[in-house]
């Protein structure tokens, strides 16, 4: 059926079609443009997510700045009869490692230190390559985007660890644990990178390749 379109179009955008992100209904925009709603589910329609790259950049830069205090400031401070101690994310990982639970140390290190950092780098790469209208590694970049979306939520791990630690130790009464300022910064990093990933439109990866080959039916040469 797609062969019988008005012209050879591989992308919905080239055929002037808007794809509803909720129900998947395709529709043709009226000439005037303006604010459109899906005729089937009434969700707002956009050819691409509005101001996608600018929003992604702003959120990623904010997340990158907050990543510094999130790692340098104390995540929690412990006070007991034996003295007091302040823990950053990294010293928490080292504590887990030294106490012999190295699989969990690896999980926390990966979720709290590596994932946010890799996510920031991945989003910078995705936004920059889309902005340069790169036509390379289309599939790989789409997969990278999917991974960023999937893995981001696991960074929330340390926030939950703090929650349970503070609650249990406070109840038990022998020591006090307080969440430190890094917890707020870290939570903000997770939320900001999640919003950044949501505001990035993966179709921007494919648009330059589609534009560069208006008559040739296939830009598959870019694929790995």
């Amino acid at each position, binding site marked *: *059926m*797609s062969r019988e379109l008005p012209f050879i179009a*591989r*992308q*919905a955008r080239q*055929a002037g*079609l*808007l*794809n509803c992100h*909720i*129900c*998947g*209904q*395709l*529709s*043709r925009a*009226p000439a005037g443009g*303006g*604010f*459109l*709603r899906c*005729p*089937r*589910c*009434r969700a707002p*329609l956009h050819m691409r997510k509005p101001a996608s790259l600018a929003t992604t950049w702003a959120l990623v830069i904010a997340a990158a700045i907050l990543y510094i205090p999130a790692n340098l400031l104390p995540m929690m401070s412990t006070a007991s009869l034996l003295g007091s101690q302040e823990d950053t994310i990294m010293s*928490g990982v080292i504590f*887990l490692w030294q*106490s012999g639970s190295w699989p969990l140390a690896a*999980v*926390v290190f990966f979720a709290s230190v590596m994932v946010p950092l890799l996510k920031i780098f991945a989003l910078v790469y995705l936004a920059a390559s889309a902005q340069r209208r790169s036509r390379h590694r*289309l*599939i790989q970049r*789409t997969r990278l985007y999917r991974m960023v979306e999937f893995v981001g*939520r*696991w960074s*929330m*791990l*340390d*926030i*939950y*660890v703090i*929650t*349970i*630690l*503070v*609650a*249990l130790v406070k*109840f038990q009464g*022998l020591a006090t644990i*307080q*969440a430190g300022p890094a*917890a707020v910064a870290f*939570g903000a990093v997770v*939320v900001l990178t*999640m919003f950044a990933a*949501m505001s990035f439109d*993966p*179709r921007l990866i*494919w648009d330059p390749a589609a534009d560069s080959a208006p008559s040739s039916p296939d830009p598959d040469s870019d694929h790995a």
Partner: protein
Amino acid sequence: MLAPDAHPSLPAALIACHECDLLQTEPVLAPGETARCARCGAFLARNPPDSVDRSLALCLAAAILYLIANVYPLVGLEMQGQRVEVTLAGALLILWRDGMQPVAALVGVTTLVFPLLELAMILVVLVPLRLGRVSPRLAPFFRLVRAVKPWSMVEVFLLGMLVSLVKLSHLADVILGAAFWAMAALIVVLTLAGRAFDSRLLWQTPVIENSP
């Protein structure tokens, strides 16, 4: 009406990939089959068997598990005969009073409010579907489910509980409460419910044609 509608002017079998925008014909799916984008491999649709009945049953089970997970203690410590246990709400309250309101709010929203909202909205959509009343008025609820989903993080919270218990295990004996197991089961049931639900069932109503 304020907003002009876009015109639906194409055969219903034509769809576009939401990740790479490739136009393709919607494949006819056998029960249990999944459709992926021909170019980028993005998930397009699934045809789960007995979609409405199964997802409704799973969502009702999830609702019961959610209740157990929030009423009973999650985890606890036992030390010299003294036993302390916390519920999810109790932990949040302590964090809130400790001057960590932003963190408490973030945890509360992602583990308590949004999972509940997600579950409630799925049920709001599923019950009329089960009764055979497909209506365009269900669409906003479904949109809410989609908006809330990335932010409900029960499975991450469960792993977080495990990590914190390991950290405390040198101080005292740790106890896994009834709510902990309910939450573990909730994750499984919610995942199955998500896989069982075919959102295309919602859009069976014919598209309202607007004249321009």
